[in-house]
């Protein structure tokens, strides 16, 4: 598969203070990349830099000008004060294509189709602020799809969900990826999901201001996770799946 995005010696962060440095990697069409690391490590900053929301402090991002991103932000960053329906939110995905021209019936039809694709057509007329976390997530994914993305970027899509909700959203994301053939970048805290479904991984090591990247099977190991999270973790292979088990904090264990 051809390279879609090339990160070349990238330094990222806010102001002049780099959070991460020396990031160089290639993302190929159709790959599924997970981005994991502790809180505040720079996961969201990395995706926002790739998306062009933040400017890199150093280095460059090479990609085709025509490459389109479908971004699904953390849903708690959206203000519930806006009186917009689920359909209105998905329609926003059609705004860039429309420019200053009016939204037409065909745009509404498309927005409906995308809501249907994510199993949320029944809530099209409901206020976005009144939806549950899982429903909001589906609507935001539908909006990202309305942008007809080459790359779907999700920032902690399963955050704050129960296991059933988590599994629902993950299955949906994988189904969409299969149907649309788009590249997937997903920031997540869920190591077990990445262990089960992920292919490639960016592992952020905040103390070293560096990333490690590569195959999930190579990176999701007991020693690496212990080092990064300071947790007593175990990684096992079980029926062709990798399973991450947490036994507790290393600090606490060493104290007892």
């Amino acid at each position, binding site marked *: 598969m051809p390279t879609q995005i090339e990160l070349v010696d990238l330094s990222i962060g806010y102001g002049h203070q780099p959070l991460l440095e020396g990031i160089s990697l290639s993302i190929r069409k159709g790959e599924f990349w997970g981005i994991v690391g502790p809180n505040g490590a720079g996961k969201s900053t990395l995706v*926002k830099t790739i*998306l*062009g*929301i933040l400017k890199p402090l150093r280095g460059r991002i090479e990609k085709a000008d025509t490459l*389109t*991103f479908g*971004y*699904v*932000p953390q849903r708690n*960053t*959206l*203000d519930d*004060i*806006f*009186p*917009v*329906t689920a359909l*209105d*939110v998905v329609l*926003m*995905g059609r*705004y*860039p294509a*429309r420019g*200053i021209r009016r*939204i037409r019936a065909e745009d509404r039809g498309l927005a409906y189709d995308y809501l249907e694709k994510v199993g949320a057509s029944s809530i099209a007329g409901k*206020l976005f602020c009144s939806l549950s976390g899982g429903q909001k997530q589906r609507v935001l994914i539908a*909006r*990202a799809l309305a*942008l007809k993305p080459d790359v779907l*970027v999700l920032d902690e899509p399963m955050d704050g969900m129960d296991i059933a909700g988590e599994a629902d959203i993950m299955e949906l994301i994988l189904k969409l990826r299969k149907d649309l053939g788009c590249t997937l970048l997903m920031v997540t805290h869920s190591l077990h999901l990445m262990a089960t479904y992920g292919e490639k991984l960016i592992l952020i090591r905040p103390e070293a201001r560096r990333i490690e990247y590569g195959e999930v099977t190579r990176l999701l190991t007991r020693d690496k996770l212990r080092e990064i999270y300071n947790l007593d973790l175990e990684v096992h292979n079980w029926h062709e799946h990798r399973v991450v088990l947490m036994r507790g904090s290393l600090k606490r264990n060493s104290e007892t």
Partner: protein
Amino acid sequence: MEYLLHIPLIKDILLAESNGMTFWEALPILRNGILACMVAAILSSYLGVYVILRRIVFVSAALSQISSLGIALSFLISNRLAGSGGFSGHGESESFFTFQGGMSLIFACIAAGLIALQLQERRLTRESILGILYTVPAGLVLLILDRTAKDAHEIENVLFGNAVFVSTSQLLFLILISLVVLFLHGLFYKQFIFTAFDADTARAAGLKTRRFNQLLFLTLAVAISISISSIGALPVFAFMILPSASALLITHRLRTAFAVAVVFGFGSALVGFYLSFLFSLPTGPTMLAIAALCLMPGLLSVILGV
């Protein structure tokens, strides 16, 4: 227009008397003022929806104060120049663009430009910076009022909209600017909404969110300063907050909220102006009171949980 006097209810309204003069007789004098209030109310109420949704009430308050400072300074400067045999830039000016209006516009635009840059200082929150931009100009206006005792009453009238007398050229300028601002907002409605609701996603999708942000702040600054020069700071701030807050409380659709806000703003300007004539009340505060009444349906809907 004479036919209005044959419609029963309207006839009673138009022929109501105050200080020995009917509203109908006073209309030729009041016409520009009424129209200016209605236009400024429509413009402010429309933009007010963004002010509430983007939680930038303090920005519009700061812009109002900075605009007012521009007006007060214009009085001070023209006063000094007149004292030294220079020119007089205020009073019943018939020019299309007054010195007061110009100063108010320049001050507000510079402030809006700075605010839109979203200057960050680690030890000061954004609210604190806006608080400073509100209180310092407010204090300076009072100091200037003290130094220009001769014009103090006139400045107070301008700032609080106590008596709204607008020249025809000033009214035309207000209408022209309002049309331009509303045209830009109609043209870029989608971009403004997407940027306001989810700037990161809009930017990732290729929208120039920073530019639209600056345009929103600039149109706010222009609308505030032009309206203040015509009808006063207090009513403009009231029109920016009250009708849009009422509209957002009673509607569940964004486009409806804009429409309801405009109707509330327009209505409170019209009714407020009329009542201020009828009961010899200061115009700005009366319009503000009526705009505040528009909050009632929204508050009721909150209390009743509708």
